[in-house]
């Protein structure tokens, strides 16, 4: 049961495009909003899974195990200007918690990666598309303008990486009707329409 089942050498690698973060917590929602925008604007073949990982931590390990390659959108504290996008790939992505906290989900996602490694399923290719957040303490606050503005570029970066990996990605037509990745009023447009309400500010 615990033995790592060997990866079947599939001619087409299984790819996971994952967004993580808490949409209720201002710029923490970057990863989820980016993957939501990707889903809205681009179409991918069947070997690519688009996943809103939301607030899940260790439970995401099964999704990493089931795919060969991984692209992750996440809010990352690099100590840069808010709204700066930074991409790290493969060995650059720190597998293990170092001295400096990079991701806000480090206890979650870094552990997911190292646990996948322990289980014998570390991704063969890996890209982390991060964005420097502005507000983290603004509970219930919106995604801030500099972070929101970076989403189209972050999505384009994911498309470029997928194409580099040989995956055909096509832009959806402007008027395409796409089933929502997030529904029940928590999709980006509906969620953010409440910005007129006073957010708690500390």
């Amino acid at each position, binding site marked *: 049961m615990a033995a790592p089942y060997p990866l079947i050498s599939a001619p087409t690698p299984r790819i996971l495009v994952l967004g993580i973060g808490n949409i*209720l917590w201002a710029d923490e929602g970057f990863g989820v909003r980016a993957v939501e925008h990707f889903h809205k604007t681009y179409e991918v073949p069947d070997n690519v899974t688009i996943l809103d990982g939301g607030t899940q931590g260790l439970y995401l390990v099964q999704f990493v195990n089931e795919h060969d390659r991984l692209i992750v959108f996440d809010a990352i504290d690099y100590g840069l200007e808010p709204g700066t996008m930074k991409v790290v790939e493969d060995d650059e992505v720190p597998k293990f918690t170092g001295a400096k906290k990079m991701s806000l989900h480090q206890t979650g996602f870094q552990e997911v990666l190292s646990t996948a*490694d322990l289980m014998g399923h570390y991704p063969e290719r890996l890209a982390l598309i991060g964005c420097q957040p502005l507000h983290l303490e603004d509970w219930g606050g919106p995604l801030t303008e500099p972070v929101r503005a970076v989403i189209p570029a972050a999505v384009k970066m994911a498309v470029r990486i997928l194409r580099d990996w040989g995956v055909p990605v096509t832009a959806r037509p402007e008027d395409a009707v796409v089933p929502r990745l997030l529904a029940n009023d928590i999709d980006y447009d509906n969620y953010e329409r409440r910005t007129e309400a006073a957010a708690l500010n500390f």
Partner: protein
Amino acid sequence: MTSQSPNGVTLDNSGKRIVVDPVTRIEGHMRIEVNVDENNIIRNAVSTGTMWRGIEVILKNRDPRDAWAFTERICGVCTGTHALTSVRAVENALGITIPDNANSIRNLMQLALQVHDHIVHFYHLHALDWVDVVSALSADPKATSALAQSVSDWPLSSPGYFKDVQTRLRKFVESGQLGPFKNGYWGNASYKLPPEANLMAVAHYLEALDFQKEIVKIHTIFGGKNPHPNWLVGGVPSAINIDGTGAVGAINMERLNLVTLIIDQIIEFNNKVYVPDIMAIGSFYKDWLYGGGLSGKNVLAYGDVPEHANDHSDASLKLPRGAIVNGNLAEVHPVDHADPEQIQEFVTHSWYKYPDETKGLHPWDGVTEPHYELGPNAKGTKTNIEQLDEAAKYSWIKAPRWRGHAMEVGPLARWVIGYAQNKAEFKDPVDKVLTDLGLPVSALFSTLGRTAARALESSWAGHQMRYFQNKLIANIRAGDSSTAHIDKWKPETWPKEVKGVGFTEAPRGALAHWIKIKDGRIDNYQCVVPTTWNGSPRDPEGNIGAFEASLIDTPMSDPIQPLEILRTIHSFDPCLACSTHVMSPDGQEMARVQVR
């Protein structure tokens, strides 16, 4: 200075202060400060944390039928439980009922979440407080096999199997990449297991990682997707089409058979792995019975898992409901969420402002006005606190009280109440564990008791899942395929102004949402979560909360390795995922550790 809290705990904050503080958060973060005496025994404890409060702002003026989708995002571990609590609150406010099938399916989803959370909590978030991973490297695989076979007939127990696990572990450790095993206090004197027991536990850590993904398939089947399954006010979103083959989303016989199979696996894993592991580990920690705190005095449970749809009376709820105060197990008090005198939140020691802070507020009348200030004896600055002043405001967590009493909630609270009510399904397994370990009933009120209650509950939940799965299938076979009531779906059918409350037993304890609906929109929404009960700061009377009480009188092997603090705090399964570091009294960082 020595003082006595009204709830019977002697506190002395004169000794050396140790701070266990977070550097990041996922669901929120927490920090523990303790004072130890000259023998390194904990004599004072201060628990502080951040807790989600912005939900009230976000939900204002939204459609109550969507509230579950927001509350499901509060936290990464209680997702479905928050959603269930939310739909129940809305249904309670609007007088909406659900069909029998929906009741069975909701119970199956809630119980699956309980089992999943309990197994992942024990193996992946708590076991390493008892199990020394590095010691497992020196285990004899043959002796490990003999040990495993003496505690269970689980098939993965050969010497070769344990040798393989050990080889994998060695490779991982020797590569310098400890990964999930980083930050442990390997070799600390408070680890009591022999190498073979450590190796057996590490093998089961890996097996549980692999198995947990099967459990959540139940959420995908009934909730349409996972993570973040779908819920529905008035029932469940999944349609039943029993003869359907491949109808998208509908529940057919093939899917129900898969659920049955997973339930069988859950029962077997609990019986042959989880519970035997707890017994094996417990047998080596029989003399480490610290951490009881409030569990032998004041415990609270709301109850959950209704036998009958729409009947939330004590008699219908299979997980027990009630309150025990002052250690009087002979009397289990009834609990009423709507009674303004029973559940109240205080902010005397919380960073919020009330017009009169000597009084508590019932959640329907809850106010969340932040007021951040440090007490006169705090050290550091507002942005870099070195030491809190517990005589002043010191936490973002409010202090909920039941009739003025600080209460412990969670699996141990539920099992103590079930035990006190003389319910055989709770009393018999507890008595068996105590008899097998040769321990008195008082041993239940401990860190180990909390951890054991969780395992017994996982086992109980597996059997309840089988019961509700059979009930669901029998009801469908009898021709009932209804999964939702939609007669009150439209806001036009609702009263102008109503209020309601929904409650569940989350894996980590009693959870309730209070809602006020006005003109079809949310007017006020308040969540009181289990970790608010357990992690609460002091109240105006000076009663200390469950986390703080549980640490008092615990000896530490080495104060710069707060293993014992983490062991006890983790035993509550706090919904605060965070990494912590240990600070010396002069603010120098001395060590780092993970707290979740």
